[in-house]
């Protein structure tokens, strides 16, 4: 019994020890696996993981380059940068945004408008981006925050460069503005292969030159190698590659002229484009009313935006490039030139004007009751005889007109160095087919050609197109692409790259034909519709007034005074000076300004007086009420 118990005990012990040995084998196998894993990680994969650890440890922090500066032709600064402190919040690091902003508000002034702007930015951005709650902190405010910094995790003071347009509203439509990068901008950056270069950048040109020359102005980002911890905080700097400042733009624009022109418009809506005919360089690009681009830089406030966006005067629209207007009588010198070139008229050929043109039983009225009598080409331009051009248009036919005007650049984008230019409308049989859907609408009726002759009907051109056409005539048929940038200065080498001084094309016009037109346009300013505006000028100029109908009068007499202001006609004036050696060609458009001679021509006079004589105007150009009587359009 005792023996068997002992046996059982021994057997039990043997079994236990055997199992212990089994466990020992399992332990050895498991630990061997572990050692194998360590050997794999620490010997074979060592290099890979070292790289991974370095990647973890070292972060390339982009250094945003200084944006290039924009100056006018004489070096006046139009867009520059300044450094200022901003108070920024990274929303993802702040548990309760409102409480944090409230607490900040007790330390540093945070106005309701700042909160509003921050909210707007928050909607547009990702939460791990650092967003400004206050900009332009004073030194005192910076010190105040620094002392309390520990209370605000996720809030930082940063020195940032800001874009500034020192002249405010002046030339804003040409300059454009920068704003925070949004999704669409990112796509553009990506398409240009610039994503890496824009890593640290949060602003981009949104319109105007700032947009068009974005990749010139931006510069090359620098990089700093910093050691970072897991929270992304920089611990120390290891190496640094300096950024390269963006290239500077020097414009053809004369900002003094621009200012004077903008002032000349007063509170009237309109556009003016002045071009140097021998280069295509734009001297002034005006669209009124204008706006302050500085409002957009830090993210525009909602009320400012509403004010600009909802204003019936539409200050954000660049009328010079995006407004398409019927050219009215300014079309006549172009028609006359076409007639000469196509052999449809000679200068001396006359017509007899009874005060209307009868086509298929319909009377096309001349503005002068009873007509101008016997009219040759000179008189038709100087006194703006409609009947002459009704007949001429009828004789030429729509496609001839379209072909000639097309060669002058009307109805197609000029290619000015600003994005978003409109095409306008150059009417032709082909255009009508494209434009309309129903077959009966697609047909061109000969009657429709008649009013085309005096710049009405389907005609609609942008001021920049008309200015280009005017400059081309002033320059005897040598056509340039209008441009705002004269040259780009490379920030590294200082090398200047000039923008396209080569002509776009030379139109094969006979010199004597051009001479006839110029002479007639000189006549306009001497004895015709522009004579009052240019009375006593110390230089000889050439011009043509025009009035673009806003709506059809259907046979009734036009009395400007009786019409509501927004229904009044648009006033136009095209001109160049000096007549013999043109230095400046321009188009003036005053929306609802009535007759061209009345409101547009006086502005042109001011611009010429300043540009050619250096004469400064005393105030906005006055409307010439008396001009109304003389105007015959």
């Amino acid at each position: 019994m005792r023996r068997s118990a002992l046996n059982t005990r021994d057997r039990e012990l043997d079994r236990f020890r055997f199992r212990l040995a089994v466990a020992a084998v399992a332990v050895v196998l498991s630990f061997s696996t572990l050692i194998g894993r360590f050997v794999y990680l620490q010997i074979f994969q060592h290099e890979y993981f070292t790289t991974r650890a370095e990647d973890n440890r070292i972060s390339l922090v982009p250094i945003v380059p200084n944006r290039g500066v924009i100056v006018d032709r004489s070096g006046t600064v139009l867009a520059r940068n300044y450094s200022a402190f901003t108070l920024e919040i990274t929303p993802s690091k702040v548990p309760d945004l409102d409480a944090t902003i409230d607490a900040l508000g007790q330390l540093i002034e945070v106005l309701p408008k700042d909160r509003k702007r921050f909210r707007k930015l928050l909607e547009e951005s990702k939460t791990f981006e650092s967003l400004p709650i206050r900009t332009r902190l004073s030194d005192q405010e910076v010190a105040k925050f620094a002392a309390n910094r520990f209370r605000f995790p996720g809030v930082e003071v940063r020195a940032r460069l800001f874009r500034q347009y020192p002249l405010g509203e002046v030339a804003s439509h040409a300059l454009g503005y920068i704003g925070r990068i949004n999704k669409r901008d990112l796509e553009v950056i990506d398409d240009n292969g610039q994503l890496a270069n824009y890593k640290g950048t949060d602003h981009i040109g949104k319109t105007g030159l700032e947009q068009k020359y974005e990749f010139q102005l931006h510069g090359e980002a620098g990089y700093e190698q910093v050691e970072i911890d897991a929270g992304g905080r920089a611990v120390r700097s290891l190496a640094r590659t300096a950024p390269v400042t963006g290239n500077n733009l020097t414009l053809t624009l004369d900002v003094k002229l621009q200012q004077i022109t903008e002032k000349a418009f007063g509170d009237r809506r309109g556009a003016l484009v002045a071009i140097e005919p021998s280069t295509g360089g734009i001297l002034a690009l005006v669209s009124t009313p204008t706006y302050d681009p500085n409002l957009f830089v830090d993210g525009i406030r909602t009320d400012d935006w509403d004010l600009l966006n909802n204003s019936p005067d539409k200050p954000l629209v660049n009328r010079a490039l995006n407004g398409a207007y019927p050219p009215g009588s300014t079309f006549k010198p172009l028609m006359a030139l076409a007639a000469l070139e196509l052999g449809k008229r000679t200068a001396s050929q006359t017509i007899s004007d009874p005060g209307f043109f009868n086509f298929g039983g319909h009377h096309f009225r001349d503005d002068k009751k009873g007509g101008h009598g016997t009219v040759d080409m000179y008189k038709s331009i100087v006194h703006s005889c409609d009947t002459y051009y009704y007949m001429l248009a009828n004789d030429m036919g729509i496609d001839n007109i379209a072909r000639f005007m097309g060669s002058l650049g009307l109805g197609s984008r000029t290619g000015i160095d600003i994005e978003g230019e409109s095409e306008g409308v150059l009417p032709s049989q082909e255009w009508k087919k494209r434009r309309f859907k129903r077959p009966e609408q697609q047909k061109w009726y000969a009657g429709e050609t008649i009013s085309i002759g005096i710049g009405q009907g389907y005609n609609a051109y942008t001021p920049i197109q008309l200015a280009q056409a005017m400059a081309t005539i002033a320059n005897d048929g040598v056509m340039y692409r209008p441009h705002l940038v004269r040259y780009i200065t490379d920030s590294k080498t200082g090398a200047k790259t000039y923008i396209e001084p080569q002509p776009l094309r030379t139109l094969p016009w006979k010199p004597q034909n051009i001479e006839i037109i110029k002479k007639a346009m000189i006549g306009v300013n001497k004895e015709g519709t522009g004579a009052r505006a240019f009375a006593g000028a110390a230089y000889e100029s050439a011009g043509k007034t025009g009035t673009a109908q806003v709506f059809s009068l259907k046979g009734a007499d036009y009395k400007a005074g009786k019409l509501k202001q927004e229904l009044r006609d648009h006033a136009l004036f095209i001109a160049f000076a000096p007549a013999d050696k043109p230095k400046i060609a321009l188009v003036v458009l005053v929306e609802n300004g009535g007759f061209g001679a009345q409101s547009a021509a006086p502005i042109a006079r001011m611009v010429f007086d300043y540009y050619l004589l250096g004469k400064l105007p005393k105030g906005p150009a006055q409307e010439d009420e008396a001009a109304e009587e003389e105007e015959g359009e």
Partner: protein
Amino acid sequence: MLQQYLRRFWVRLVVHIDGPLLLITGALMLAGLATIYSATYDANNRALSQLLNMFVGVCVMWCVAQLPPQKLMRYAVPLYVLGVILLVLVFFFGIKINGARRWLPLGFTRVQPSEILKIAMPLMLAWYFHKYEAALKFRHFAVAGLLLIVPFGLIAKQPDLGTAILVGAAGFYVIFFAGLPWKVIVGMIAAGAGAAPFVWTMLHDYQRKRILTLIDPTTDPLGSGYHIIQSTIAIGSGGTTGKGWLGGTQTHLEFIPERHTDFIFAVFSEEHGLLGNSILVALYTLLIVRGMMIAANASTLFARVLAGSITLSFFTYAFVNMGMVSGILPVVGVPLPFMSYGGTALVTLFLALGILMSIQTHRMLVKQ
């Protein structure tokens, strides 16, 4: 006179202490302290407070080592019953922290009853098998299985999978050493393998995703995969000899989460490399060898299976922790024994160590 007194005192002090075990764990604790210092000195140094934990732990160990195994056996049933009752209370009244109901509020403090089971479970099962030693039948194994499964289920339900596995393993080792038939072991493995596909189809999508992330952490680099990716980077970049004490960039730039607790091995490995790892594994191996020797020479079945289970538990802790930190096992909350920071876990470990010492030293007394 005084000398004699001092000598008697010394003998009284060390008579129930196992030298090799103390030496090995001492070395592990030193390594642990140095690593905790490295992991926390630039923010919130925990080395000193871990030293205090160790002091308390050693005291507990000393006290337990004085108790002969027969006395220990008496605590088995009450401790187990208390543990299970507390677990049930946790199930109903526990406080939820981070989505898991593990703590029981006691007014002035709160306790984690699952910690008690780490000791109570092997103690209870060892007592049970000891009681029926003479005639162990299959039903005894079945009852033991039941005693195991109830607390295991309650802990897993909290959910605290890490502790549940450790408690379950400790219990299973006792059953294994008590002589669970091989047929049953093989059958269980086969059944488990066979059931796996069915379990897989029964899981929710998010549960499957979690398992897949455990297998390939790169599928969720910022979520649960982050820990493993960063710790493998730390280990791998440590290379052969490591970046040197206090020199681990992954550690000091705070890429390693839980770096003084569950992931302390990543810190150690980054700073001491393969060489350090090998020494560490060697130390654990020595600990296990010594524990197995104690088990093999134990005089009663209770002592044997208990010592065997405790020893293999040490192994399980070490292997699961190093395995998860180095990315071959899923992440479960298991500390590295004698290295990780944390008072409760350390005291439990020293309690187990005290039991081992008691078994070893009282065996000799019995023989005498």
